[in-house]
């Protein structure tokens, strides 16, 4: 039971990170109808930028951890968002009316560019960081000495995710930008006729998705204490699985799917085998797409001729 509770906590934390990445997939899919294959690599870039900013700040002699974290989160969000904007501008916008496989292939190319760009720029070796947020609470100690730990970093990850999700939900449901986004999702031509700047709205979607991915990258960096140039690929596929599981196009669905994938992966590693945890995640993707293509909270897709 204690072991179960501990795995539950670990799974929720991992799920939060996946959920943050999954939001980027689901938003882009909802609005442009393409899988942003490079999104996992945007997450990786976010992790790198967080690492570099962190290193620069520490070397200036700054010691207050909350201040450092605040600056790191802002800088990595801003710069990664610019990456997202540039990617959309270069690789996707010219292809918006091209044949249907073109954006996907362009996205795969972009994913290679980003992976190898970071490898060339930052080297192939894994970059470790010392633990920044330490300490934690012991929730429960059983008679045989098994301790349920809730570390501070886990709290930070979950709280940040909840706060961002709240801000984000407000953004989509209450602001002008959110209304434009929902309008473009339904019908781009009609939205354009009614005075919505479609290009700008789509750009903003990519910007927001990238910023959330940057936060996920930072959280990953803090939680696991490392980044490397190849971490975007697997994390990206899993986050996409999360988005599909939750129902692609649905924001709460993405978060829910992220949590589900995080929990499944953690429990699978804990009770079955660590080696096959990725196989489990990918199998879920296939099974979900076969039996419930609309996911948990998605709307059925109507095929128009």
């Amino acid at each position, binding site marked *: 039971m204690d072991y179960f509770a501990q795995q539950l906590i670990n799974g929720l934390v991992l799920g939060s990170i996946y959920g943050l990445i999954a939001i980027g997939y689901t938003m882009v899919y909802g609005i442009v109808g393409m*899988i942003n294959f490079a999104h996992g690599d945007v997450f990786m870039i976010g992790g790198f930028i967080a690492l570099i900013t962190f290193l620069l700040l520490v070397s200036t002699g700054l010691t207050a951890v909350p201040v450092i974290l605040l600056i790191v989160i802002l800088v990595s969000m801003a710069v990664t968002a610019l990456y997202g904007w540039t990617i959309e501008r270069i690789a996707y916008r010219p292809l918006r009316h091209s044949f249907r496989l073109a954006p996907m292939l362009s996205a795969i190319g972009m994913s290679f560019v980003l992976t190898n760009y970071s490898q060339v720029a930052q*080297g192939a070796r894994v970059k470790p960081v010392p633990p920044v947020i330490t300490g934690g609470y012991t929730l429960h100690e059983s008679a045989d000495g098994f301790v349920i730990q809730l570390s501070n970093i886990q709290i930070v990850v979950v709280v940040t995710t909840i706060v961002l999700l709240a801000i984000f939900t407000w953004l989509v449901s209450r602001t002008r930008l959110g209304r434009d986004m929902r309008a473009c999702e339904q019908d781009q031509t009609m939205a354009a006729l009614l005075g919505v700047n479609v290009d700008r709205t789509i750009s903003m979607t990519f910007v927001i998705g990238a910023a959330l991915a940057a936060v996920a990258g930072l959280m990953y960096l803090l939680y696991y204490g490392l980044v490397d140039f190849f971490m975007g690929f697997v994390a990206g*596929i899993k986050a996409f699985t999360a988005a599909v599981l939750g129902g692609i196009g649905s924001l709460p669905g993405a978060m829910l799917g992220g949590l589900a994938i995080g929990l499944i992966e953690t429990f699978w590693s804990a009770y079955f085998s660590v080696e096959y945890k990725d196989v489990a995640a990918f199998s879920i993707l296939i099974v979900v797409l076969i039996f419930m293509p609309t996911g948990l909270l998605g709307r059925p897709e109507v095929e128009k001729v």
Partner: protein
Amino acid sequence: MKTSSSNTAKAASGIPALLKTAGFNALIALVLFSLMVGVRTEAGSDGQLTYWTRFGEVASLVAAVFGGSIVLELLKQWIGPSGAEKLVPPAVRSGMSFVGSYLAPALLIFTLLVPVIFYDQRYILDLAILVLTYVMLGWGLNVVVGLAGLLDLGYVAFYAVGAYSYALLATNFGWSFWICLPLAGVLAAFWGVLLGFPVLRLRGDYLAIVTLAFGEIIRLVIINWQDLTGGPNGVSSIPRPSFFGIPLDNSDNGLAARLGIEYSPTHRIIFLFYLILALALLTNWVTIRLRRLPIGRAWEALREDEVACRALGINTTTTKLTAFATGAMFGGFAGAFFATRQGFISPESFTFQESALVLAIVVLGGMGSQLGVALAALAMIGGFELFRSLESYRMLVFGMAMVLIMIWRPRGLIGHRAPTVYLTKAHAISSDLVKEGHG
């Protein structure tokens, strides 16, 4: 469309606007590169992170972006708005078609003569075998992507199934290559159908992700199922192929001894060369024949418009499954050949990058065009060999090329294959003209 026209309008208004655009791009580049390129991090020997700055590199990159955008804008002004049909003089066009109709036979004759011309150059022969392997893979994937229009990102899985089928059957049971080759193809086709079933209902990009996941699952299972596959260590000492039972070695009953000629290790290389050439040509021949059968026409129809296909009574289930199975079978053949050529296989040879490379060959060659795929494989693998020393840069360039080709000529750089049959009085609604042909 909107962007290109607004950009041209901007560019048309003169030098200051030009500089403004370039300056804006340079500013963006500065922000993008300042942290990622400007600060290089590295883990020291004691696990402590260190960094050093590289402002020179950032400056040159930003300058390159500035110069590049000026050149690009000027080019746009000279060439005119993108999307306009370029007028090609009829003489040039007829010349092109003349060259085009003789290119394929000429290329084939040259390929047949490669072992004769380069008999002493082991490196060129090895490279030629590699190119032909990718030509075969490209032609195999072309059935799925080019003809049936199903985006398959996990093609390497079938390549792996073929390679491991041969390797395991040959090392465990001692079966000969010529028995295992068809078996490898059949097994790969079986996996193709197995993958095909669940993905039948999926639309284009969902299909792509599922095939990608499938490819990764196969690779992960190969890595982790150590009892069977040897895990990351792979399978070694895979038997070499024989000339229909006669070994190609230096022994008394080897081919060289039987023919009474002096033994040379090159014989085996040349045999492998003609073997893969034969396999590739078989793939090509089967594809061309299939294209004329109802099933091939159904594939092409499926690529153009799935809904119309169903409305006309084509059974999309069997059509998709046969496409998957046929493509997978050729992948399996190529895999078996790969295993016997290398003599050693490991999961590292079957990563997603490999799938993407084959897919890029098909896309670059112009989906559906056989000659285009062959030329693209030659250009791609040849290009990779040329830049072998620049290991990570070449994948960077490969990615950029993929993006640029999609922007510039999404229907392929070299060829473009229209459907084999179409109404001659075409008020053509092909997929070039419609935004999306669901499939």
